[in-house]
C-alpha cells in the first residue's frame, strides 16, 4: 500500500501547468510523491503515457480523433500497442507484461486526465479480464496476444435493455446444438461494441431470468451470421452499440469458463471495470479541479479574479477534498481487484464505486458551476470531463445501486 501513498500527489491539481485549458501532466514535479513510491518500471510507464498524452491528446487533437470513422484514433491504438499498454495486464507468455492493478490504475488515471476515446476499457480491461481469468490456454493464446498487438478489439456484451443494473437479469439464451451452441437475444449499451472484433456475450444456458445460476459467457465473432450491431455515441462521446443475436452459432470452444457458472466471472470483469474507471475518474477530477483552479485565477468579476472570493476558494478546497477522498477509493479498488476473498473483494469495490461516484459528481458539477456560462459550452473541455464523470457513475450500476447493496450487507 505504501507504494500507493502519494500524500503530496494532491498537489498535482494545484500545481499543474495548464495547456489549452487542460492541466498538463508534470514530468518531474519534485513534490509528486509518486516519484519516490513508484518502481522504476512504473515511473517509466507513467512518464511515457503522460508524454504521449501531452503530445497527442491536447483537447484540439482530441476533436480530430473524434472525427475519425470509429470516433477514436486508430493511430493512437497502434501507439498503445507499441508502448505495451494493450498487453499490460497479461502474462508474458501471451505477449503481455504481467502488469498489476497498480499499473492499470496509472494508465487509466493518465487516460482520464486526457479523456481518451479509444476502446481500452472495453478491450483490455473488460474483455481482457474475462479471457485472462476465464479462458482456457487455447483461448488465451488465441485472444490475448491479438489484444496485445492491437489486432483484436473486444467488448463486454452483458447488459440487456430490460435489466437496467441487475447483473443476473439475463434473458439472452444459448441452447446446445450439436457440439456447439445457438445464441438468441439482445445486448444493450455495449461499450465500444460497434468496433469490437470479438464479443464476450453472457447468455442463459439454464434457469430463469434473475437466477444467479445458469449464466454462461461466450466468445462470439462480431461478424458471425446473426450478429447485428447498431453503434452510437454516448453522452461522453465514447461509442457504444446495441447488439442483437439471432440464431448465432458458436462452437463448443466458444464457451468462456464453466457452463452455467458464468456469474462469478462476470463479477470479476465488472470489478476490474469499476477499478479501472475509478482511476480514470480520478484523472478526470484532477483535470477538472486543475482547470477550475486556473480559471479562478484568470477570470475576473467585479474587478477581481473569482479565485479571490472566499466562497470560491472554499468550494475549490472542498473539490480538492473530494478528489483526494476519491483517489483513496480508486486505490482501494486497485488493491482489492485481486483479493481472493470474493465477499471481501465485492464489498470493498462496492464502497469504492460509491465513493468515486459521489466524488466525481461533486467535483464535476462544481467545476461547471464555477465556470459559469463557459462551463455550459461544448467548446470548453470542462463539459466533456463533466459528462465522462456522469457516465462513469452509471457504468456497471450507479451509486444508489451499490449503496443499496452495501446497506443489505450492514451487520
Amino acid at each position, binding site marked *: 500500500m505504501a507504494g500507493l501513498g502519494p500524500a503530496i500527489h494532491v498537489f498535482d491539481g494545484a500545481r499543474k501547468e495548464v495547456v489549452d485549458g487542460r492541466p498538463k501532466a508534470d514530468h518531474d514535479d519534485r513534490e509528486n510523491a509518486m516519484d519516490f513510491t513508484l518502481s522504476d518500471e512504473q515511473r517509466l510507464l507513467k512518464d511515457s503515457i503522460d508524454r504521449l498524452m501531452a503530445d497527442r491528446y491536447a483537447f484540439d487533437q482530441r476533436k480530430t480523433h473524434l472525427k475519425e470513422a470509429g470516433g477514436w484514433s486508430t493511430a493512437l491504438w497502434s501507439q498503445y500497442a507499441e508502448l505495451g499498454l494493450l498487453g499490460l495486464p497479461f502474462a508474458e507468455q501471451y505477449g503481455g507484461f504481467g502488469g498489476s492493478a497498480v499499473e492499470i490504475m496509472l494508465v487509466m488515471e493518465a487516460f482520464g486526465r486526457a479523456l481518451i476515446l479509444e476502446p481500452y476499457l472495453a478491450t483490455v480491461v473488460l474483455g481482457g479480464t474475462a479471457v485472462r481469468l476465464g479462458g482456457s490456454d487455447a483461448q488465451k493464446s488465441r485472444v490475448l496476444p491479438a489484444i496485445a498487438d492491437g489486432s483484436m478489439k473486444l467488448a463486454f456484451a452483458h447488459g440487456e435493455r430490460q435489466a437496467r443494473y441487475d447483473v443476473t437479469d439475463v434473458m439472452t439464451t444459448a441452447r446446445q446444438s450439436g457440439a456447439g451452441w445457438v445464441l438468441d437475444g439482445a445486448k444493450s449499451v455495449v461499450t465500444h461494441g460497434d468496433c469490437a472484433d470479438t464479443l464476450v456475450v453472457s447468455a442463459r444456458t439454464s434457469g430463469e431470468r434473475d437466477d444467479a445460476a445458469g449464466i454462461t459467457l461466450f466468445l462470439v465473432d462480431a461478424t458471425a451470421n446473426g450478429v447485428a450491431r447498431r453503434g452510437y455515441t454516448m453522452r*461522453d462521446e465514447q461509442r*457504444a452499440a446495441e447488439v442483437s443475436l439471432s440464431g448465432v452459432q458458436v462452437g463448443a470452444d466458444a464457451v468462456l469458463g464453466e457452463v452455467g457458472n458464468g456469474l462469478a466471472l462476470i463479477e470479476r470483469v465488472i470489478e476490474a471495470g469499476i477499478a479501472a474507471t475509478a482511476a480514470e475518474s480520478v484523472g478526470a477530477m484532477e483535470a477538472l479541479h486543475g482547470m477550475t483552479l486556473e480559471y479562478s485565477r484568470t477570470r475576473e468579476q467585479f474587478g477581481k479574479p473569482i479565485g479571490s472570493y472566499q466562497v470560491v476558494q472554499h468550494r475549490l478546497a472542498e473539490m480538492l477534498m473530494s478528489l483526494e477522498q476519491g483517489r483513496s477509493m480508486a486505490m482501494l479498488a486497485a488493491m482489492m481487484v485481486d483479493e481472493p476473498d470474493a465477499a471481501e473483494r465485492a464489498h470493498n469495490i462496492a464502497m469504492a464505486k460509491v465513493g468515486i461516484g459521489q466524488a466525481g459528481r461533486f467535483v464535476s458539477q462544481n467545476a461547471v458551476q464555477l465556470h459559469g456560462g463557459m*462551463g*455550459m459550452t*461544448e467548446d470548453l473541455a470542462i463539459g466533456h470531463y463533466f459528462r465522462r464523470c456522469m457516465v462513469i457513475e452509471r457504468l456497471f450500476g450507479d451509486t444508489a*445501486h451499490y449503496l*443499496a447493496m452495501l446497506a443489505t450487507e450492514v451487520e
Partner: protein
Amino acid sequence: MDLRFTPEELAFRDEVRAFIRDHLPAEIRERMRLGYGPRKEDTVAWQRILNRRGWAAISWPKEWGGPGWTSVQKMIFLEENQVAPAPELSSFNITMLGPVLIQFGTDAQKQRFLPRAANLDDWWCQGFSEPGAGSDLASLKTAAKRDGEHYVVNGQKIWTSTAHHADWCFVLVRTNPSAAKRQEGISFLLVDMKTPGITVRPIISIDGAHHLNEVFFDNVRVPVENRVYEENRGWDVAKFLLGNERTGIARLGKSKERVRSAKEMAREVREGGKPLIEDAAFRQRIAQLEVDMKALEITQYRVVSAYDRQRDGRPDPLSSVLKVKGTELLQATTELAMDVGGPLSMPIWAEELAALSNEPDVGPEWATQATGSYLFLRAASIYGGTNEIQKNILTKAVLRL
C-alpha cells in the same frame, strides 16, 4: 395549491387546467411529456392560442391585452402550464420587453411592438451579457455611436438564448464611453435581427443542443426611434427589467412535472429485481423531494402574494430564495429523472444532436431526453445571476452585512 387557496383561486386554477386540457395540441403535449423541449413552432402556436384567450400578456395591464391577474393568479397559471406540460410563454416578450415598453416606451413603440410581442408575431431575444461581463453586467463594451438619426452599433453579445429564432433583440449598448460611472452612458435599443451587420453564431451547450448564441454587431445601424427611454439612461431600464416581477422564477411546475414523470417511468424499470418505484431508497429520495417542493410552494406563495401588496416597486430580495431553492430543485429533479433511466439515459438521442452525428435513436426517448434536461439545467444555477450571486444579494439586501 394545497395551502388553502381562496375559493376564487381554486376556481381559477380549475379554469386554467381545463383550458389547457382542452386546447393544448395533443402532439405538443405528447412530445413534452417525453421530455422534449418545445420547438419554435410549438411555442408560437401555444402562445397564440393563449393570446386569443387573453392569457398571453399575463403581466401587462388590461389596456395592452393583459388579463388583469393578481400575482397569485399568474403563479397558478405558470405552474399549471408547466405541469401540463405545455410550452412556456416567451419570457423575453412577456416578462421582459412588455413591461419595459409599458413603463418606458413611447406610444409609438407600444403601438408598434406590444401587440405583436403578445401574439409572438415577433420573437424577441435579450442582448445583455458579453464575454467578460457575466454577472457583472455594467462592464459591457458593445458601443453605439450616434450618426444622424441612427446609432451605429459595434460589439458582441453572448449567451443570447434563441437568437437564432429571433426577429428582434433588445440590446444594452454603451453610448457614452467617457461617463463617470460605468452604469451611466448605457442605452437600451430595439434591434431588428434582419439589419445588415448582425451575425448569429450558435453556441452548442453541454447537452449537445443549440439554445445559445453569440451575436456580433458590425456597424449595425439602428434608428434612434428604436431607443427606449433617454440616451445614457438605459441602466435604469435594465434595472427595472431585471428587478421586474419574478413570479415563476422558481419554476416549481417544471420540477413537479419531472418528479411525476420519474415516478411514472420508475414503474417500468427495475432495481434489485423489482420495479424501481418499490425501491426503499428511491422512495425516500422522492419523499424528500416532495417535502422540499412543498416548502418551496408555500414560500413562493408567501413571496408572490406579497408582490401585490408592495407599493414601493422595489424587487423583493426574497425572490433570491425562490431562485436558489427553485434551481436546486430543478437540478435535483432532472437528475432524478435521468437516474431512473439508468444505462439507457447515457446514449445520445440522435435527433437532439442531428448537427453533430447521424446516429439512430436507441433506448426510450424519455431517458435520453431526461439526460438532456439534466445537462442543460446545470445552467439553472448560473443564468439570471448565479446562486452564489443570489446569496450575495441576500447578504446585502436582507442581512444588511
